[in-house]
């Protein structure tokens, strides 16, 4: 049966007439889904961290102006019309957020030691009255998002609950800390953790909590889902901007070199005019980031290092790259392998000739 049936099957399949490729439809649907995906990422994240987006009532798509939160009977829902999603925010970016906030922000304190802030969202985009901060702790498995709310946008009581196609109410712990209301979904955190953090926040000041939070932020620009951040921070240079690139970003390097383009800092997404209908996102405007993370010359330097260390264009290097430009004449690039047995290698690249010079190799144990 094997050979006969295989041959017969393949022959029969080859006889199936193939319709014309609907490339235009595939292209436009792909772009549409990609744009919606960015909004969904924001909405999904915001929903998890309470800043669900939507519109009150109405049959058609509708934009909700500003930001509002409803708290009733231990349940919460919220709506905003615009927002900013910041992945791996830096201290400067966080300070910029609180400078524009409509309330004195007290950040969560008392989260498990070793936790990192991996995302911050704010809404509305211009003067945020809702800020969500997301923490992750690989060691303890702690992962939770806290919504920090201006009490002026919080509505209480059943009568005030939104209707229509508003996001559903979700069970949450909530408390007051200084001049803000804090809320966290019950499915993200234990009661014990919530009580501990509530008690710690009651004692914290805005400045003190900011200092605690800044210690949990990356000290460089982190692009992608890096797994080597802790190691990269050991090698980070005090001069110039340090950028850590994960494998997905490294894969784009050859194309950028070919086109002479810089690497864009895509950590921050701006979404405005969010409208919601029938319980789902109807539309919104997402703005592409334009900030440059690594100049076209720096991109060439990264490419030169990857080539000089034997990484062909169609292969992954099995590493992450830490980039820095300490002066106009030189780039420093660290190659941080995934394998614990290989060491971290530092390369110096001439900014004019792109000649690569190995600078140092740290022993393998330093990557553990």
């Amino acid at each position: 049966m094997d050979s006969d049936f295989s041959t017969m099957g393949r022959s029969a399949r080859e006889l199936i007439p193939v319709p014309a490729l609907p490339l235009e439809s595939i292209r436009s649907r792909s772009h549409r889904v990609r744009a919606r995906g960015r909004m969904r990422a924001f909405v999904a994240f915001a929903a998890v961290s309470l800043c669900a987006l939507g519109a009150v009532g109405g049959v058609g798509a509708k934009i909700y102006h500003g930001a509002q939160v409803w708290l009733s009977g231990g349940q919460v829902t919220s709506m905003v019309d615009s927002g900013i999603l910041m992945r791996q925010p830096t201290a400067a970016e966080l300070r910029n957020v609180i400078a524009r906030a409509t309330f004195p922000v007290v950040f969560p304190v008392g989260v498990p030691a070793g936790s990192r802030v991996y995302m911050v969202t704010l809404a509305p985009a211009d003067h945020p009255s809702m800020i969500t901060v997301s923490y992750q702790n690989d060691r303890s498995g702690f992962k939770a998002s806290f919504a920090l709310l201006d009490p002026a946008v919080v509505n209480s009581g059943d009568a005030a609950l939104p209707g229509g196609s508003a996001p559903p109410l979700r069970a949450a712990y909530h408390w007051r800390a200084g001049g803000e209301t804090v809320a966290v979904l019950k499915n993200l955190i234990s009661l014990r953790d919530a009580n501990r953090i509530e008690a710690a926040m009651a004692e914290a000041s805005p400045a003190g909590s900011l200092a605690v939070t800044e210690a949990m932020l990356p000290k460089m620009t982190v692009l992608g889902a890096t797994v080597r951040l802790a190691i990269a921070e050991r090698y980070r240079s005090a001069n110039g901007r340090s950028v850590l690139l994960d494998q997905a970003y490294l894969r784009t390097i050859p194309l950028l070199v070919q086109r002479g383009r810089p690497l864009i800092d895509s950590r921050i997404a701006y979404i405005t005019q969010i409208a919601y209908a029938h319980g789902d996102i109807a539309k919104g405007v997402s703005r592409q980031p334009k900030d440059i993370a690594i100049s076209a010359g720096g991109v060439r330097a990264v490419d030169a290092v990857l080539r000089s260390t034997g990484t062909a264009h169609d292969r992954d290097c099995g590493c992450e790259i830490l980039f820095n430009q300490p002066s106009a004449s030189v780039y420093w690039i660290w190659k941080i392998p995934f394998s614990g047995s290989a060491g971290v290698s530092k390369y110096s690249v001439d900014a004019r000739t792109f000649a690569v010079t190995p600078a140092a190799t740290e022993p393998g144990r330093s990557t553990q």
Partner: protein
Amino acid sequence: MARWAPPAIVSAALTGDEVAAEQLVAAVWPGCFRLAATVIGDASLAQDAAQEACVIVHRKVRSVRSAGAFDTWLYRIVMREAARVRRRHHDTGQSTFERFSGSDETTAMDVWRALGSLTPELRDVIVLFYFDDLKSDEIAGILRIAHATVRTRLARARERLRGLLGDYRDEPLPAPLEMKQHGF
């Protein structure tokens, strides 16, 4: 494992090159459509599944770990989209495979009739095993089922096809079924 597209195109698409992604979609389209058609049994539904798969390829190919991982990734997408289309249209196993064969293609007619006699689950493994020449552990990875389940489904499908396709060479059954046949 079968190749969907030349490695150079796959590698170029992995870098995020939009033009390469479209070239890749063009290269994989016939294979996607024919695989979907073979497991669904309906050209119109197969076109829906293949188009969904190609939208995902266009949109997400950059996220594939490496060029070597592309084939399995695409098989998984096409089979998943085909299953989704089948569910949406309540595939009862009584598909309309005869539509594929021309009136003078007796062999093809036999093949489609045979596939149409199988449940979707059995059909999936038979098609991947015989038509696409995939090993049972590769099929298990693509369909996200246990290796033993693949072998059992293969054995069941062969039993059903035995009568329809007539003479064929026996091959060892998976151990549990073989033991059962021998009265254990």
